[in-house]
C-alpha cells in the first residue's frame, strides 16, 4: 500500500487545527499531496484553509481518505491511531517524538488488527518524490529518482538526500521508519516492497546503533536473494553504552544493538556498508541506475 500512494491519494491531517497541523497541511499541499481535510478542535469564529471534521470516521465518510498523518503530541498518538484504525484508513503516519514504548506496543497491536499500516513514531514521514509527501522531509533533499530510501533518522537522511540530489540522483520512495524502538513499519517490512517496486533500482538503508532492525532487514534481504544493489550507512560507532543517544531506540547494551553486529549482518546479505556520508554518496553515484 505504501508504494501505491501517489498524488491522487486522498489524505487527512489529524490535528489540522493546531500550529503544526495548519503549517504542514499547507506545505504538504504545496508539494502536491492531495489534502482533503482533517480533524481537530475548531474554536468559534476561527476559519481554516481545509475542511475540519469531528473525527476520522466522519472525515473518511466525507472525503474517502485512505491515509492520514497525525500531527499530534506524543501523549495523544495512541488515541489518534485508535481513531484512524476505527475509521478504516489504510495508512497512518505519526510524527511525534516521545511516545512511551508501552503505548507503542498498544498502537502496533491496534494497527495490525485493523490492517492499518502505521509509519512512526518519531519520524519526519514519507515521500514519493514528485507525487506525495506525508510529513516534513525537506524539499532540498528530494527529487524523483530510482533510489529507495529508508531511515531511522530524519536529519541524517536529509543530509544524505541532499548529497544524492547534488549528484543528479533522486528517490523512488523515501520512508522514515523513525527512531523509536517499537514502531509500525520496520526496515524488514519494506524489503519485499522495495524488491518488487519497479521504480526502485537501488535501496539505501540509513540506520543507527540500537535494536536489531538492521540485522532483521539483512536476514530478509538475504532470503530474497539480494535482488537489487543495496547500500547502508550506520551512525553511532562512538555511541556510549547504556545511554540513549537522542533517539529512544538508539541504545547499546552489551552486544545487543552494536555497530559491529549490524555491519556484519548487512555485508553478509550483500549490502555495501559505509561509514562516511561522502563515500556512501560517491558509491551510489558511481554505479548507473
Amino acid at each position: 500500500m505504501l508504494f501505491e500512494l501517489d498524488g491522487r491519494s486522498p489524505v487527512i491531517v489529524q490535528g489540522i487545527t493546531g500550529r503544526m497541523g495548519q503549517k504542514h497541511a499547507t506545505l504538504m499541499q504545496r508539494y502536491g499531496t492531495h489534502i482533503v481535510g482533517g480533524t481537530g478542535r475548531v474554536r468559534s469564529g476561527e476559519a481554516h484553509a481545509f475542511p475540519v471534521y469531528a473525527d476520522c470516521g466522519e472525515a473518511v465518510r466525507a472525503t474517502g481518505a485512505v491515509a492520514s498523518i497525525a500531527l499530534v503530541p506524543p501523549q495523544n498518538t495512541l488515541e489518534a491511531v485508535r481513531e484512524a484504525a476505527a475509521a478504516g484508513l489504510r495508512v497512518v503516519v505519526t510524527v511525534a517524538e516521545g511516545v512511551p514504548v508501552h503505548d507503542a506496543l498498544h498502537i502496533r497491536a491496534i494497527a495490525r488488527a485493523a490492517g492499518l499500516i502505521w509509519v512512526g513514531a518519531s519520524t519526519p514521514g514519507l515521500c514519493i518524490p514528485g507525487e506525495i509527501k506525508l510529513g516534513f522531509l525537506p524539499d532540498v533533499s528530494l527529487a524523483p529518482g530510482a533510489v529507495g530510501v529508508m531511515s531511522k533518522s530524519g536529519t541524517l537522511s536529509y543530509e544524505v538526500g541532499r548529497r544524492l540530489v547534488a549528484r543528479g540522483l533522486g528517490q523512488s520512495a523515501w520512508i522514515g521508519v523513525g527512531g523509536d524502538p517499537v514502531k509500525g513499519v520496520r526496515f524488514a517490512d519494506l524489503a519485499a516492497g522495495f524488491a518488487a517496486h519497479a521504480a526502485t533500482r537501488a535501496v539505501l538503508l540509513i540506520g543507527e546503533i540500537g535494536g536489531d532492525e538492521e540485522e532483521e532487514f539483512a536476514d530478509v534481504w538475504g532470503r530474497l536473494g539480494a535482488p537489487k544493489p543495496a547500500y547502508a550507512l550506520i551512525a553511532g560507532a562512538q555511541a556510549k553504552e547504556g545511554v540513549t543517544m537522542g533517539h529512544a531506540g538508539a541504545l547499546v547494551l552489551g552486544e545487543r544493538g552494536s555497530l559491529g553486529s549490524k555491519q556484519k549482518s548487512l555485508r553478509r546479505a550483500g549490502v555495501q556498508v559505509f561509514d562516511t556520508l561522502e563515500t556512501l554518496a560517491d558509491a551510489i553515484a558511481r554505479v548507473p541506475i
Partner: protein
Amino acid sequence: MLLLEADGKVLFREAGIATPRGMRFRDAPGGAVLPGVGPWIAKAQVPVGGRGKAGGVRPVATAAELPTILQALLGLRIKGCDTREVLVEEMSGGPEHYLALMVDAAAGGVRLIYSPHGGMDVESQAAHGERGFSEVLPLDAEALEAAAGRMADRVAGTQRAGLLDLCRRLIALFLSRQLMLAEINPLFAQPDGRFVAGDAKVVIDMNTLAAQPVLRGILSDGRALYPDAWRKLSQDFDFVEIDPAGQVGLVTTGAGLSMMLIDELVAQGLTPNNFCDMRTGQMRGSPARLLQIFDWLAAARDVRVVLVNIFAGITDLSEFAQLLVDALRERPGFRLPLVVRLVGNGEAVARDIIVAHPDLGIAFEPDLERAIALTAERLRTVSRKEALDAV
C-alpha cells in the same frame, strides 16, 4: 536508559523482590558497618555489560579489605564510564537461574524468558535447556500472569511457588513502571524454595518520566551518577558526554546526524567532547538551550573549538543564527573559536547575520566536510598558540 544495578534493586525491593543486603559507597567507607558477617562482594556501578570481565567486581573477604577495594574501584573507567559508586553486598549463593521481561520490538510484544541456567554467559547460550521458557505475550497483565503460570510449571515442586510469586511481582513492576527491560541474572535459588536477585538490569523509558515520579526521583537523587539522563530530564534535550578529554564541543541537532558527525570527526583523528541533539524546533525564539550548552562546554576541561551543525528542514536558520549571536553576547566570557555549519531553510539570511558580527570570531561554512576541516585547522591554531603561551 539502563539504571545502575543498585537503583534497579531499589525498584525490585519496592516490588517485594528479595535482594542481598548491601550498602552503596561514593567515597571511603569511613565508619560504615557492612551488613552481616561477610564475605561480601563489591561491584562497580556502571551502566555497561561485562564489568566483571573488566575488573569491576571484587570479593571482599573481611571488612578490613574494604577501603583498599573501594579505592581501587571508585574512579575505575569501564567501557568509557567512570565508576562513581560501588555497591557492596553480602555474598549470595545457590544455583543460578535467569528471569527477564523485556519489550521485544521485532515481535511487538513482551518477552518472558526463564532459564534454570543463569550466570555470566547466559546471553551467548543458544538454548536454555528443556526447562527453559521463552514466549512473546501481548502487553496485558492477564496474558502475562497466565504465561507466568506456564513457566512455573517447568520447575521442580519446591521452587514452583517461589518462582511464580517472583514472576508476578516482576510483571507488576514492569507494567507499573512502564519498563523496557527487567532482567535478573543471576537469580539465586535458595534451599527453602525462595529466590534472591543477585543482579538487576532495568531499562527505563525516558518518555514515561512525566508519569513516573519514582523514576524521576531516582534520577534526581542520583544526578551525579546519571549526568546524561539528568541533563535530559532537567533540560528536555539530549547532551551526552562522549569523551571528557574531547577537544571539540558540538552544538548540533538531530540524533542520527549528530551521531554520524561524531563518527566522522573521530575517523579524522579529532576528539569530540559530546553528543548533542538540541532540537532546534523546540527553541521557540529563546537562546536558553544555547546558553546551557555553552555553560556545559565552558566547564569541559579540554574543549578548544566549538562546531555547530544544523541541517534545517523546517527550522528557520535566520532565527537560529540570531539566537546564536544573542547567546554569545549574553556570555562574553565564552569565546572559543566557533565553526558554524548551517544549511537549508533560511541559510542566506543566516550567513548575513553571522557575517555582520565579525567580533564574535565565527567561521561560517555551509559545507560539512569543509567545516570539519576548518575545525581541525582552528584546533591546530589554538594548540600552537597555547604551546607558545606556555613557553
